[in-house]
């Protein structure tokens, strides 16, 4: 008797081996889609609808791929010349085509496209604006792009004597509610993109665009400008923080308050400071990362924590920082409502200490990063207007013909004071 080869077990073992070796590849592939800006791990109905359309296109194209690529692979293997003699035999039949095959393939392609077209059309209308039945519950904010930061305005939140509530780079919205974001720009084209909540829509000069989104859960979401907008486009980022109804109302009430002052006299006896600072600044290289794993482990928790005043804060240092804020002409471009400054060129800083990021969502709002940003802004965000100035306002440097000379310098000591002041603005 011929020995029987154990084909089945061999095959099974081979398949198992293949599956095991392919596992990291497959799972590696999934971990490649789980970032904070994933377009497939969605957190709201708009992004979910867009992902659903994407999956339809994926399944349709994969089905076509299996058939067409299978045929192509089969034809290539089946009809290839295996040796030189094969190449020199008489040529094959010189056939010219088959209209019936052509027509049926065209019909099949059209059918496949219809499968994609139907959900596409539905989603175009759905994602364009807040559905009629939800309009009553809609919340509206205005987002304006600048080179290279975002200004967020709450048109319904009036503050007595100073207009509407304005924030920058961190958009706080109510969760479980449709939010319509009106998109504007004052300089070049930007694009508002929070992948987990909604696909992007551009901010185009002289054009009133909008998008809508709805956060399923309270949470902390990453966003980024998605249209090339000049030198520092890569570092034009922002965050969206969704809060439940109660927290959102509380946040609004707090935001409408003027900039926080720290009563220096009351605390001076306890902690006579201003001689040394709570951190030691270590200079970092250009483009050094401004994030930490500790923060990323619980960004929403950190945001909540950031709303509370720092227990270690030093009133004397803060008072000095507040003076420097005017002396160094910061107040010419920035506003701290209720205190110095009414500038509207740069981001509103009334509650900058309560934000989790600075420099347009680029750096975590830590003393170290704040220090880095205000002492060397051009190395953090090259080409920015704080450094070069704009309009009538001079920045850290001023133009002298074709060259630039230093206009503002911030010493290490001054930076410590400014950092303390800005961090006190909860």
């Amino acid at each position, binding site marked *: 008797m011929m020995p029987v080869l154990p084909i089945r077990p061999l095959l099974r073992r081979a398949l198992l081996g293949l599956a095991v070796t392919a596992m990291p590849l497959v799972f590696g592939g999934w971990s490649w889609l789980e970032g904070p800006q994933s377009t497939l791990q969605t957190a709201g109905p708009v992004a979910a609808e867009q992902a659903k359309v994407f999956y339809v296109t994926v399944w349709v*194209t994969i089905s076509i791929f299996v058939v067409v690529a299978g045929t192509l692979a089969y034809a290539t293997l089946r009809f290839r*010349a295996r040796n030189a003699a094969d190449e020199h035999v008489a040529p094959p039949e010189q056939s010219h085509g088959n209209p019936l095959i052509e027509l049926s393939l065209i019909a099949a392609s059209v059918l496949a496209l219809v499968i994609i077209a139907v959900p596409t059309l539905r989603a175009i209308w759905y994602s364009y604006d807040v559905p009629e039945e939800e309009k009553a519950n809609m919340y509206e904010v205005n987002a304006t792009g600048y080179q290279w930061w975002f200004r967020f305005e709450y048109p319904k939140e009036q503050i007595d004597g100073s207009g509407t509530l304005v924030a920058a780079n961190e958009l706080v919205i109510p969760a479980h509610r449709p939010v319509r974001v009106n998109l504007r720009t004052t300089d070049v084209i930007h694009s508002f993109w929070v992948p987990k909540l909604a696909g992007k829509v551009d901010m185009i000069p002289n054009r009133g665009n909008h998008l809508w989104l709805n956060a399923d859960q309270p949470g902390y979401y990453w966003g980024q400008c998605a249209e090339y907008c000049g030198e520092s486009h890569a570092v034009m980022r922002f965050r969206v923080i969704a809060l439940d109804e109660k927290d959102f109302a509380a946040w609004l009430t707090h935001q409408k308050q003027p900039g926080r002052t720290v009563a220096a006299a009351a605390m001076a006896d306890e902690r006579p400071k201003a001689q040394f600072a709570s951190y030691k600044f270590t200079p970092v290289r250009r483009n050094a990362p401004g994030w930490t794993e500790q923060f990323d482990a619980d960004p929403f928790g950190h945001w909540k924590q950031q709303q509370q005043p720092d227990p270690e804060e030093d009133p004397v240092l803060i008072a000095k920082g507040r003076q420097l804020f005017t002396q160094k002409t910061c107040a010419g471009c920035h506003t701290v409502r209720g205190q110095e400054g009414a500038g509207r060129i740069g981001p509103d800083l009334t509650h900058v200490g309560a934000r989790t990021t600075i420099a347009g969502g680029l750096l975590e709002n830590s003393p170290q990063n704040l220090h880095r940003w205000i002492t060397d802004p051009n190395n953090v965000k090259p080409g920015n207007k704080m450094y070069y100035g704009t309009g009538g306002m001079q920045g850290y440097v001023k133009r002298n013909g074709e060259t630039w000379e230093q206009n503002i310098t911030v010493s290490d000591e001054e930076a410590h004071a400014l950092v303390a002041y800005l961090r006190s603005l909860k």
Partner: protein
Amino acid sequence: MDALARSNFIGKEAQPDAARPWIFTRPTAKTGIVSWLTTVDHKRIGLLYGMSALFFFLVGGVEALMIRIQLAVPNNTFVSHAVYNELFTMHATTMIFLAVMPLSAAFFNYIMPLQIGARDVAFPRLNGFAYWVFLAGAIILNVGWFMRSGAPDIGWFGYAPLTSKAFSNQFASDVSTDLWIMGLQILGVSSIIGSLNFIVTIINLRAPGMTMMRMPVFTWMTLVTAFLIILSFPAITIALVELMMDRSFDTNFFEVSKGGLPILWQHLFWVFGHPEVYILILPAMGIISEILPTFSRKPLFGYPIVVFSGACIGFLGFGVWSHHMFTTGMGTVATAAFALMTMAIAVPTGVKIFNWIGTLWGGHLSMRTPMMFALGFVWMFMMGGFSGIMHSAAPADSQQQDSYFVVAHFHYVLIGGSVFALLAGIHYWFPLVFGRKVSELWGKLSFWVIFIGFNTTFFPMHFLGLNGMPRRTAVYDGNMGWNTPNFIATVGAFILAVGIGIYFAVMIYTYFKGEKAGRDPWDGRTLEWSLPNPPPEYNYAVIPTIHARDAYWYEKHHRDEIARENAEHAQAEASHGGIHMPSQSWFPLVTALGLLGGGLCFGCKDAINATMSGWGMTGHNFGILFAIGFGVMVFLGALLWALEAPGGYHVHAEEEKH
């Protein structure tokens, strides 16, 4: 034939005409640098296009490698933000306008006249002019690298208002955008001139019997591409003129502060920009439609449908431009219309793929290097096509637009598509052009290295895009989950570079030392393979008569009939004085030099004026004055071109060496 006998051309040999002033005589050098500078031979012009395109292909490749080095790890400092922006702008501009388009033009020039049995293009001097103008545009685009302004940094799409003076000249005087405008404008001149020439050639100079539906598919695609170019370039010409007026003369087409409309730029740009995509891919499809039948040894499956689908893609290509603008807030109806049109264009594209597979079916496939690249093209183009269908679903696209998913998509179409086909074409026609055959071993090795490197580079980018990584970003943070795919992509880019390196090293070796190829080394089907290699200056000793679609295949199977006809034609031609050839000319080069100087002076006018005022000369716009001076040179060049001796001479084909 009295009229012919009195013709000015008859019986004249190529020699200076003593009766005319020297400036009106035509150069006659057949070798050396002058012969190349004054050439009107479509094959030499094709080679000039090819060499320039390959040079810029390498330049664009180096720019791509620098981009990949910067992105290999998060928060990298290899280049600054500003330099990175210049790199991605120039990488795209170079690859599209200075590498792929001229490489296609090289094939149009060299192969198309051979395929239709012509002895040259319809307007030989104009053909030379198109090349020199192309070179002028290429120089103007790249000259910024050597200036203080730096290279253009506005993206290859140059969206207003980032291109306006208010933003580009914010902190320093910057002429890079002006140079970009002039460079693209001049390249457009070259493309339109070249295309008109190809259209006239294909319509008028086909050999007897070559009806439109007997033309090789590559020639058909040349025709469709040429029409796309002459119809789409006017849109970008208008856009560039408006931008130039805004920047130079304070008009307000796009100036926001004066009520200009930046969105207007996007429409004009993409009315050009989307047909441009097909300008890049249709020649590639033509090449593939030549290679697959040759190496399958059977005719193209469904020739009429392949031709019509090519033309159909050309037409539909003008109706889908706003799918580049799904995120600009066009509103529901416009978005839906452009989404459906974009899906529709997938049908003729799919038809081509079905027909290529049908061509393989039942054939005898010889797996030579050109065939490998051609099959690689079909696979990779299919992948790029599928991600293209994903983009057509506008809601999905709102997540993918301007993300790395798009970068993956169009590199699959442009490298896996266009570049693979062009590399296949170089291998395929190399024996015809240079008379030598590339080693199969090295050719296939280069194919596999390129294939693996390409997929390693660009496949992970799909994931990057879906994971939210935007394009055109010089740095990214390490906490976004983008590190591994980016690193893999960079490794892939270097593998790809090694593959390209092997490919060209082998080509250069083969040019000098390769195995000599006999006539018709691939058992070809189209007319160009009937020629000795390299082809003589006059191409066809006797203009062939065409009886069937695969003309040379027919000829090989009906030798007696063809020999009889050729003898009759040869006799008729001899009675007209032999083979009529066009004379060379200096004026295409002179006129193009005028455009180069004018473009440079106008583009650099701010820098020139600053320099002149540094020398104490103010009060005039010297840049524009100099540009006008060069404009006079262009005018004189064209005038003398018109007035120079009509030229033309006759040669008598020697007995062909086999």
